[in-house]
């Protein structure tokens, strides 16, 4: 039965919420008191439907999100010779090479990310240990790091003249050991694993933790050894999560942009990079649009598979009990293995970032001698302006201005809609706001350029695109947080005589502040880390931190790139601390699971 008919059956819950809704001063309260409210309420979802589907903000957002994609589709489908172009492209060597490379590198990236995560997941899933919560929180950090920063870290640490090769030369002077694979297939995989393995570790660890330990005990008592138990019990129970994550990482890697753009050179391209090259370098807009459509179809297929795997994750257990402490006294072997794992992954994960920070204090980017601020001084010289096209101050101002604007607009709009739909389950209206997650950013940007590139200034186009990028996640986070807040506290305040404004100011916003801060931090991080939209829509005139580092790397001005990267790391760290200080981010908000969407 729909909730709108409940009053007829004597359930006053919804009537109560309507009355309190009026007390909170919402628009269009049912006139005529409780009886009128009851009568109105018998019409199923009349008001809620207005809320969800006809709200001007909601409609405006749908328009902003889908119009560029639609314009792209229209332009491609109704363009002259579309089918010939399409079949020509699908038969071309370029298409098959790109598809083959994208698939191979995505497969390797997903496989290695999971392989590296699984041993750690065992320790996170089966034991309690000091600092577990902190480590878990830190696993969100890569997600906050801009792609270009990851690439910079990789170049500085694993590059031909990087720290790793420097160490190898020092340690083994006669062997001639060097790692030279960064600019190529394996370098791209290395960067993707760096990016993805921590959230694989976090999610697999959480999945393992949800499996009731008594299942393992039951298996042991039935005579099974540890490996048999793992193969027959743990693995099947974790399989949906592993599949879900495999497809997720595959998806991210398949549509990777920044990493492949910088490390792939002319040899390796994903479809995202291909669209960008056709669009920016060769100025073949129709061709770029065509590739974008092909990519859109590929993405739809992959997303469908990923949604299926997400649905299967329901089968996992719900254990939430206490885990045994990982102590050397009780588990000496496992404690040593875990420490070894932490050191290894910590080295893998933190070394590139640490190398960026450390090298920024040494002149010409090479360690030796005393730390100096020479590289930072270079940021203020004409050399920087020549390479980047803007002054350092201008870059910082543009970046922060964009980040703050995107953050404020995205959070305000998302919270407004989240508040509007607070007493509704996840439904189609929410799904429409989530679907932009399934459209590649380069595709969107090219569509947006075709739609409004000649009308609107670059900054507005970039803001539009970054809003599109950040909104689904921000909305998902705030929607969940607002729903979890519930109504009783607000109702209590209303009954104590507080006005709607006062309730918002003294109860609702203070309680929602952690979620709002987290959402704002994520929105800012997305804006700061965005490279594709600024490159495609900025037309060279808008230069942000990401673009500046990209150009510095392109001009081989590594000392400045490293100094700017350190500033970028500092900003990312501040944003991370802002989130951590306020609340613990929920990974399901970052990677919303399809099963959370319910039919209205």
């Amino acid at each position: 039965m729909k909730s709108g008919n409940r009053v007829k059956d004597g359930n006053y819950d919804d009537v109560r919420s309507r009355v309190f809704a009026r007390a909170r001063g919402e628009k269009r309260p049912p006139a005529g008191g409780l009886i009128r409210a009851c009568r109105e309420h018998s019409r199923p979802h009349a008001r809620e439907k207005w809320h969800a589907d006809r709200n001007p903000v909601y409609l405006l957002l749908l328009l902003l999100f889908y119009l560029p994609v639609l314009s792209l589709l229209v332009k491609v489908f109704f363009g002259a010779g579309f089918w010939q172009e399409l079949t020509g492209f699908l038969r071309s060597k370029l298409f098959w090479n790109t598809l083959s490379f994208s698939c191979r590198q995505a497969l390797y990236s997903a496989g290695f990310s999971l392989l590296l995560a699984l041993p750690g997941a065992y320790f996170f899933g089966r034991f309690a240990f000091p600092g577990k919560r902190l480590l878990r929180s830190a696993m969100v950090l890569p997600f906050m790091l801009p792609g270009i920063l990851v690439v910079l870290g990789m170049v500085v640490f694993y590059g031909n003249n990087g720290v790793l090769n420097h160490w190898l030369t020092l340690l083994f002077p006669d062997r001639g050991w060097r790692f030279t694979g960064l600019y190529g297939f394996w370098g791209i995989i290395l960067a993707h694993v760096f990016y993805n393995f921590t959230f694989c570790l976090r999610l697999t660890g959480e999945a393992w933790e949800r499996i009731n330990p008594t299942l393992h005990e039951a298996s042991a008592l039935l005579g099974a050894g540890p490996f048999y138990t793992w193969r027959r019990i743990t693995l099947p129970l974790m399989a949906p999560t592993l599949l879900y994550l495999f497809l997720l990482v595959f998806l991210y890697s398949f549509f990777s942009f920044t990493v492949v753009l910088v490390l792939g050179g002319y040899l390796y391209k994903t479809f995202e990079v291909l669209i960008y090259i056709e669009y920016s370098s060769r100025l073949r807009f129709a061709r770029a649009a065509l590739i974008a459509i092909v990519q859109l179809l590929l993405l739809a297929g992959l997303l469908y598979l990923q949604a299926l795997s997400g649905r299967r994750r329901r089968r996992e257990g719900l254990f939430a009990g206490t885990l045994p402490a990982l102590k050397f006294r009780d588990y000496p072997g496992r404690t040593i293995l875990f420490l070894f794992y932490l050191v290894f992954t910590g080295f893998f994960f933190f070394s590139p970032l640490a190398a960026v920070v450390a090298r920024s204090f040494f002149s010409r980017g090479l360690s030796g001698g005393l730390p100096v601020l020479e590289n930072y001084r270079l940021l203020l010289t004409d050399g920087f302006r020549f390479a980047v096209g803007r002054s350092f101050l201008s870059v910082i101002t543009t970046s922060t201005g964009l980040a703050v604007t995107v953050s404020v607009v995205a959070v305000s709009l998302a919270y407004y809609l989240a508040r509007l739909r607070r007493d509704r389950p996840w439904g189609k209206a929410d799904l429409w706001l989530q679907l932009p997650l399934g459209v590649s950013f380069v595709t969107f940007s090219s569509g947006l350029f075709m739609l409004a590139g000649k009308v609107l200034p670059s900054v507005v186009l970039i803001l539009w695109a970054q809003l599109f990028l950040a909104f689904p996640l921000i909305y998902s986070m705030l929607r969940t947080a607002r729903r979890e807040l519930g109504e009783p506290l607000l109702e209590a305040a209303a009954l104590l005589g507080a006005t709607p404004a006062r309730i918002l100011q003294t109860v609702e916003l203070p309680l929602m502040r952690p979620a709002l801060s987290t959402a704002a931090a994520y929105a800012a991080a997305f804006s700061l880390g965005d490279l594709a939209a600024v490159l495609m829509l900025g037309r060279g005139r808008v230069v942000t931190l990401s673009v500046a580092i990209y150009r510095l790397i392109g001009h081989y001005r590594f000392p400045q790139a490293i100094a700017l990267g350190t500033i970028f790391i500092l900003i990312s760290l501040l944003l991370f601390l802002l989130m951590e200080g306020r609340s613990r981010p929920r990974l399901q908000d970052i990677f919303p699971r399809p099963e959370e969407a319910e039919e209205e």
Partner: protein
Amino acid sequence: MNENELSGNELSGSEQLCLEIKKAYPEFRMEVALQVNRGEIFSLVGPSGCGKTTLLRLIAGLEQPDHGVIILDGREITNLPPAQRRVGLVFQDYALFPHLTVAGNIEYGLKVQHLPAPARRQRLAELLALFSLEGLAHRQIQHLSGGEKQRVALARALAPKPLLLLLDEPFSALDYSLRQRLRQELKKLQAKLGFTAIFVTHQQEEALSFGGRLGVMENGRLVQTGTAEEVYENPATPFVAGFLGEANLLPCSVEEGEGRARVRLEGDGCFELPLQEDLPPGTYLLMVRPEDLSPGPVLAWRVTGKIETLEYLGSGYRLEVRCGAGVIRAFIAKKYRNLREGDQITLGFDPRQIRLFPVSPQNSSGPSVPVDNSPGI
């Protein structure tokens, strides 16, 4: 029915469990010596957190004792891993494998044993028939009712023919009537198959209902073992008396005088007993069960007080009477329906039904003293 197959040598109970173990925990120190006879259901009862489940986990090998030895079927298993102990355990939450069907769960242990497929299928069919699960063989675990899950858990635990079956409060998640029915089924099954089992529960009714021996645990120690009747009628400590059934524990003193012991109940007079060696003068707690109290001045040992509460129980009444020694609870027959709260009442009791627990400043739960049967009054 193939229960003969099931009740082969492994299950028929030619074995017994002997253990004497010590293990220190942050909350308490476990120190238990226990012997379980072949073919019996030994009930282990005690309040939540007293160490019942922990003891089962130690026997199963899921935890290791600090000191001691566990012998099962004449073989020391103290240091054996769980997989090699041949101990079955029915978990409190059943721990059924959610990704396997009913049949998959039951034959899991058989597959581990690498039993050939025909033998495995035959045994599976036997167990499904024995537990009336034939129609559910291919059903997913999440689609089973509580009672069905319990039966699957039991069938799974029995499938590999364990030497000892451990049942960790297996009925705790079920409603009252289903619990009763399954208890009866378990008793019948044990009578058929003759397996040896330890049944853990925190419900006294459940422990008493199996009729076999039981042990009462308190703070990691087994404070008393015996048949249900022995433990109920002759509790070793006030804790046992209070835990198994209801008990009135009234402070009293024993004095010596003229060849007789005089029991002085605070505020309620004095009763005399023949002198006993194990009843030295001192402070005691007098234990009398509520059902052993009856209204009227017929019995010589009696207390008088005012009815504070009176509850109708269907089969009779439950009273709380304020007397000099404190509040006394009593169960009385329906025929006293004229009683009202506030009425004065005299409750008499037979000295053969009482126990006296010595009270010392250090330990208030010392061994109880049975009172000589001759009233001597």
